[in-house]
């Protein structure tokens, strides 16, 4: 069972970045029956989505988030030991997308840098990996998590097209002391690999340009069934293994999948909605980066005490992950609109 507790993981801050282009689902979607549109929007809870243009990638959004976060916490790139980008929206098949962020923000050659190919469950996986690296002796690690799922969606598939937005994020972690304990539970069910899938665009299947197979397929009811089973399970497992109760968690930061599903899960798990931010209305489902986005846009920016968070991602893989960690009052939560490449590049 992939459950572990790690010491020495201190979260120093979180930043997110979304594209400046905003779609209003109620007014900007042509050629769709208004009644169906209202129904989909009401159920998913998505009024607006920020989406990239053709020249912007997930690594661009992450680069800006990373740059702003390092400025907010006073970190110089030369002091960062490892930089991880969790994404399934790569710039290229190769090299790793994070190499571009490494170049643009002036990280030194001594920084370990790699991509991690996970989606909705990726944030806790990235934090766990960072925690392991800090435990093994590194001092500072930044986990980037960015996705552009709006580019995966076929325009005629309203179940996905109206749901997804784009975002990038950065979470800075450093080696703390023994009291900085974090817990992680990580799971996979590969039998459900085809429940959320883009069949084309890679080596397993090649299809002509424009083919439906080059876009996302989502088996909505199966994904809901998976969520109903796995989310309560992993929350129970986490609370049991840590000896914590629901009341010991200040905020439940769930992947922002769909408002209807999230509300049902909250009710099923007896989570007070006051403790569980839902930010779908303004951003839609941005994939795994919805976890850090729910932190920067759903948590109080000013906090008078350390808060304990339970984060939970679930989806493509099938993969699900849960983390429990503390966020101190001095850890900034930063959010910005993407300003384009020129302001982010290191002046050389």
């Amino acid at each position, binding site marked *: 069972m992939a459950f572990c507790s790690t010491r020495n993981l201190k979260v120093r801050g979180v930043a997110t970045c979304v594209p400046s282009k905003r779609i209003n689902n109620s007014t900007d979607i042509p050629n769709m029956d208004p009644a169906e549109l209202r129904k989909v929007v009401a159920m998913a809870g998505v009024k607006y989505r920020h989406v990239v243009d053709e020249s912007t990638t997930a690594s661009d959004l992450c680069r800006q988030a990373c740059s702003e976060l390092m400025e907010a916490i006073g970190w110089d790139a030369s002091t960062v030991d490892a930089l991880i980008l969790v994404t399934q929206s790569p710039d290229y098949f190769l090299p790793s997308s994070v190499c571009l962020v490494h170049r643009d923000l002036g990280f030194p050659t001594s920084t370990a840098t790699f991509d991690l190919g996970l989606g909705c469950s990726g944030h806790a996986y990235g934090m766990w990996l960072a925690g392991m690296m800090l435990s093994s002796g590194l001092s500072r690690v930044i986990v980037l998590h960015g996705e552009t799922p709006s580019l995966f969606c076929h325009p005629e598939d309203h179940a996905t097209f109206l749901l997804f937005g784009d975002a990038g994020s950065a979470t800075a972690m450093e080696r703390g002391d023994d009291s900085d304990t974090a817990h992680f539970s990580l799971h996979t069910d590969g039998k*459900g690999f085809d429940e959320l899938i883009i069949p084309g665009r890679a080596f397993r299947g090649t299809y002509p340009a424009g083919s439906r197979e080059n876009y996302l397929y989502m088996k909505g*009811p*199966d994904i809901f069934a998976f969520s109903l089973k796995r989310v309560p399970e992993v929350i129970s497992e986490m609370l049991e293994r840590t000896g914590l109760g629901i009341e010991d968690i200040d905020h439940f930061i769930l992947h922002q999948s769909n408002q209807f599903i999230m509300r049902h899960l909250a009710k099923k798990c007896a989570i007070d909605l006051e403790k569980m931010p839902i930010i779908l209305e303004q951003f839609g489902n941005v994939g795994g980066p919805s976890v850090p986005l729910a932190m920067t846009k759903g948590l109080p920016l000013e906090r008078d005490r350390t808060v304990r968070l339970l984060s939970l991602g679930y989806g493509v893989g099938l993969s699900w992950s849960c983390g429990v960690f503390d966020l101190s009052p001095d850890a900034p939560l930063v959010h910005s609109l993407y300003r384009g490449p020129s302001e982010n590049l290191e002046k050389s």
Partner: protein
Amino acid sequence: MNDEAKFLAWCETLFNEEAGSMSMESSREDIEGWDSMGSLLLMADLDEMFDIQLGEGGLEALTSLADLAALIKEKGTVKP
């Protein structure tokens, strides 16, 4: 109201159909509201009201209200 009438009334509310429009013979194809969103509503109600979690692919096995009634009768536990 007998159990069948209660069941049909619940289905009509769930799928947003007119009262009295459904029978046990109504098939999935006949019910306009039993679309992808209706399926999510059904799954949520089955979970909440009867403690039934449809497995992945379990929804496809339901082709009519009679199938649904049989599932609830076989596996359902009415929550207090």
